[in-house]
């Protein structure tokens, strides 16, 4: 289907939100440019677009976190101009951010009433109200629980509770499903439907087109900061939406003929890990990866996959044996493991992958401080490092003016490309990759998959953790599922659906 000109929303209902010609510039970046958006009351309206298309920015503008440079916004027919979330909240708008906005060390109650103390105080009245909402939507939340004790799904419900507590009629959800497994997604959608039934209007952002088609009443597509059209979820196909989003075909990783060999590259035998409080983070992990094999690891966030990777690379110290290419490395320091040919693509690129304020070429050295071309003996080899950085920038199409630019200035995807290029160089024998394409737009995604496959053909062994089950199924030769620090399932990607995985990941029946 072709893009119907923006503005003609497919609903006859009165408009809850009307955005006209909104433009938002950041230093150098035009995040939103002449955006039009119509959201009908009591509907779930999906907003889609590739990374950096400007979705979050637009939402932040709607919620008063940031101010539009141009354009008008009207809520329920009233033209408004928010200068702070407070005003947005007054106007009945609530927002669930892309990243959780919760204070771990405060209770659910405190998190919820924060900023809305006027409504029911901070005492029993508030507690009662929270209980009421929680029951009404089956959130099952204990108001006096510390948030740090809550799981991902619960935290998300606290976020929604915050919005409802303020009596918001319009709820913005920025990529709420990014961290959820299918079952949790279903639960969330159930909530959204109830909300819609009770007259709420929802603005819903996601990269996952199936979800969008499952829940949305209308769809608006953003590309490069501007609205390129709307679509009807009932009729539009994934492919059409994808084309609208990127003006290109939506790729998905295709497994080619297996390159799995027989010689074992990595084997973990009975690896255990306990935290400071003596609780098990990993228990009895056994797995082997052969040369040329990609082993996928599926799991709900916080079930030990990060710990597993960190134990492998030596950031955490577990018990049990880890051999790489037949060599026992469990006694090695992280540095020696890297020297032994282990590459590491961390889940959190900002915390573990980059020196944000250092130039790209110094970031190239990071993690390779002891190996050429970065260093010669005890000295840093600036020329060598710079040359190799340039190579990575060209080969992996890192969009940057120069290799002297600080990493902070790069976009998330480009930062990710740099990391992957770095970890691939010096031909590692084992790559430990977490969410290699998270936050990366489709173009870059395909490229990254390409690189991984090529290396795999050349005999690289890969341990792949990803929340994107399609990616997992597409890339892996085998898939294991981890739950509460234990391997609970073993799947063959050729005959497994995301739903099966999701079930295993959440403690449903295994394979």
């Amino acid at each position, binding site marked *: 289907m072709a893009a119907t000109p923006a503005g003609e929303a497919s609903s006859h209902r009165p408009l809850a939100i009307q955005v006209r010609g909104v433009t938002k510039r*950041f*230093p*150098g*970046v035009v995040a939103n440019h002449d955006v039009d958006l119509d959201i009908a009351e009591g509907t779930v309206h999906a907003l889609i677009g590739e990374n950096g298309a400007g979705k979050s920015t637009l939402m932040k503008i709607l919620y008063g976190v940031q101010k539009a440079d141009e354009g008008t916004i009207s809520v329920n027919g009233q033209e408004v101009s928010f200068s702070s979330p407070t005003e947005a909240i007054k106007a009945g708008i609530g927002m669930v951010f892309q990243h959780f906005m919760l204070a771990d060390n405060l209770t659910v109650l405190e998190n919820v009433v924060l900023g809305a103390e006027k409504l029911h105080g901070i005492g029993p009245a508030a507690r009662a109200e929270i209980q009421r909402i929680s029951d009404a939507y089956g959130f099952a939340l204990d108001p006096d629980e510390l948030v740090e004790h809550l799981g991902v799904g619960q935290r998300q419900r606290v976020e929604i509770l915050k919005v409802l507590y303020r009596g918001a009629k319009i709820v913005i959800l920025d990529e709420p499903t990014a961290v959820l497994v299918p079952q949790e997604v279903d639960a969330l959608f159930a909530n959204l439907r109830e909300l819609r039934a009770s007259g709420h209007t929802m603005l819903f952002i996601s990269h996952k087109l199936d979800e969008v088609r499952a829940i949305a009443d209308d769809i608006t597509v953003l*590309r*490069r900061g501007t609205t390129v059209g709307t679509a009807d979820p009932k009729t539009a196909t994934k492919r059409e939406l994808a084309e609208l989003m*990127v*003006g*290109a075909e939506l790729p998905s990783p295709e497994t080619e003929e297996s390159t799995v060999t027989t010689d074992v590259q990595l084997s973990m035998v009975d690896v255990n890990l306990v935290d400071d409080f003596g609780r098990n983070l990993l228990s009895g992990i056994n797995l082997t990866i052969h040369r040329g094999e990609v082993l996928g690891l599926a799991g709900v966030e916080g079930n030990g996959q990060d710990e597993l990777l960190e134990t492998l*690379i*030596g*950031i955490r110290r577990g018990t049990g044996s880890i051999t790489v290419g037949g060599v026992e490395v469990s006694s090695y*320091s*992280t*540095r*020696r*493991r*890297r020297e032994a040919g282990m590459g*590491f693509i*961390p889940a*959190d690129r900002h*915390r*573990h*992958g*980059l*020196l*944000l*304020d*250092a130039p790209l070429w*110094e970031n190239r*050295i*990071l*993690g390779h*401080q*002891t190996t050429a071309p970065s*260093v010669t003996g*005890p*000295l*840093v080899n600036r020329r060598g490092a710079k040359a190799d950085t340039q190579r990575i920038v060209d080969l992996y199409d890192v*969009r*940057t*003016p120069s290799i002297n*630019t*600080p990493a*902070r*200035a*790069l*976009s998330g995807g*480009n930062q990710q490309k740099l990391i992957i290029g770095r970890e691939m160089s010096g031909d590692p024998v084992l790559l430990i990759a977490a969410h290699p394409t998270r936050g990366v737009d489709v*173009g870059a995604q395909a490229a990254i998959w390409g690189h991984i496959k090529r290396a795999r053909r050349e005999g690289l062994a890969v341990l792949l953790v990803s929340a994107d089950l399609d990616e997992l199924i597409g890339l892996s030769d085998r898939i294991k599922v981890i739950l509460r620090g234990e391997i609970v399932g073993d799947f063959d990607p050729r005959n497994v659906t995301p739903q099966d995985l999701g079930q295993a990941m959440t403690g449903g029946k295994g394979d």
Partner: protein
Amino acid sequence: MPVVKRLLAAVIAPVMALVAAVLITSVVISVSGTSPVDFWQAMLEKPSNRSLVNIVNQSSMIFMSAVAAAIGFRMNLFNIGVEGQYRVASYVAAVFAGAAFVSGWLNVVLSLLLAMLAGAAWAAIPAILRVTRGVSEVISTIMLNSIAVFGVGWLLSNYGEKAGDGRRTTPISDDSLLAGWQPFERTDGKIWSLTVLAVLVGVTYWFVVNRTRFGFDLRATGQSETAAVASGISVKRMIVISMMLSGATAGLIWLPSLFAETASGHYFSSSTFQVQLGFTGIAVALLGRNKAVGMVFGALLFAYLSVQASALEFAGLDVSKNVVMVIQGVVVLTIVISYEVVGRWRTAAEQRAVTAALQSPSKQEVPA
């Protein structure tokens, strides 16, 4: 971003800061009823030859103190303990040199090494507490500063030799004293021989931090501990090593004065030992942004201020010399603030550059 802009950014911050500092102090001074004009005239009048010599000698000590602090700061270790470290080290060195186990320059060299050892050892305490028990080095070093005062004072008053109504370590025999260089008249004093230590320390610091693997690890740890760990740096090891390096450098701070023939009193005593250098060093490190060159200027500025302060009373100005401390504090504050401001402006510029680069190739991807 263009080199010109970079240079501009480099100078604009300090200039802004100094202007602000001058204004603020002028206000403070006029509050006390003295005319700021007179004050600045007195402060800015050309230093006498003797003052110049003193400025060089003082700044050498301040500079080493700054480097000591900077080593920690470079990896987000706030070693507030330089003050205590160089007190302990100076005492140890003075005792050893005074005992004259060996004579001549060998005595000097060994004392230097011993001082570095002592400083490192004293600095190791907070380091170890930090890595084994997670004790914030800020608090522990502050506590250790006080403990150093009591400890050294106790040793001095119990084992020091009597001198007048005070105590001191045994004076260093003349054969271990260093003549120094005399740039002007004899009465204008001499530049202490061991001021060269400052040069050595400075060059070494620059080279190690910017050119060596260790330096890279140091800066990496400072910029992001988590990333450093993931990159294979053993942060605990780094903390202990760099803290001890910091302490070792601190150990040298006072020694130029101790072994200088022309300095008065070749021994450690309540009146000859110069206190406060540790804190001055911290301020100078902040001033110079932990960069070797920056700290050279910082050290010179602070030395200049404290030396010129003595000109005040001959200028017949009725203003407390403590105003110098105010100036120093204000300078530090204004410097860091203005660097912050300039820094933000620069990041924005860099992002502009990035997106400019992002835009051009990505254009054709957008269908017209």
